[in-house]
């Protein structure tokens, strides 16, 4: 069965940009799932189990921090690795909080394909 990724971001444009970055890094997924916030992602994860999740931190409704907390409490999805996608100069506090809540890594924009590979490669 092919690999699947879930991209969580409230901007459809950013989801397209992240998806393009994955392809540029040579990470081809057979299935690309998308969610507009943490709650949409939790709902989607009830029926779909991607191999990896890439999540924005600042989102309306349920942000990346709350998503990590909710995911950690659900035995059926808690082991799916999550990589946070943030911007250089963004809130370091939230990145640290994400890592302490079980995020597997973080990529900061601007990133090169090699940097994406370095973080995501070992998790796949």
């Amino acid at each position: 069965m092919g690999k699947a990724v879930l991209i969580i971001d409230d901007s459809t444009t950013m989801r397209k940009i992240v998806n393009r970055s994955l392809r540029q890094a040579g990470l081809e997924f057979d299935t690309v799932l998308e969610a507009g916030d943490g709650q949409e992602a939790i709902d989607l994860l009830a029926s779909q189990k991607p191999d990896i999740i890439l999540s924005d931190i600042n989102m309306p409704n349920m942000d990346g921090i709350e998503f990590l907390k909710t995911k950690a409490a659900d035995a059926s999805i808690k082991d799916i690795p999550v990589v946070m996608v943030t911007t250089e100069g963004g809130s370091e506090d939230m990145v640290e909080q994400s890592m302490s809540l079980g995020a597997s890594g973080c990529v900061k924009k601007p990133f090169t394909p090699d940097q994406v590979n370095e973080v995501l490669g070992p998790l796949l």
Partner: protein
Amino acid sequence: MDFTEKIVEVAKEIFETMVMVDVTAGTPLDEHVSRFECSLSAMVGFAGFKQGNLSIHAPDKVARGLTQDFLGMEVEEINEDVEDAMGELANMLAGSLKPFISENGGKVELSLPSVVHGEEYTLTVVNKADWVLVPFTVAHGDFLVGLELKKQS
């Protein structure tokens, strides 16, 4: 204020790694430009220890071209994708410049990006602000990156 070198450095990094386009910097403008026609401006504000904003001003054609390159898909008109992509570019530029703007340890926060697009509009400089406007050239044409910082009282 001499942020020109840093603006050129971070802009080249962002456009060459994320958008995958070659970008050439020109000489910073001597006179401030505030009136734009058939263009799109994306801005991110700085608040806290330093106040001001980072902006990108691009003619429609250039904004569409950069978005096409950024997203890897055709863009026919100025739409939500173009606004979001240009806003994200402004966000990355502001984020990368933040460490240099907040030197001396003062905390600086970034606003969410805002975008203006229209046939004709004017953006006025923050009162008593230092500014720099650097022109850049890509295959689609020319655009400006601006930085305005309120003078410390």
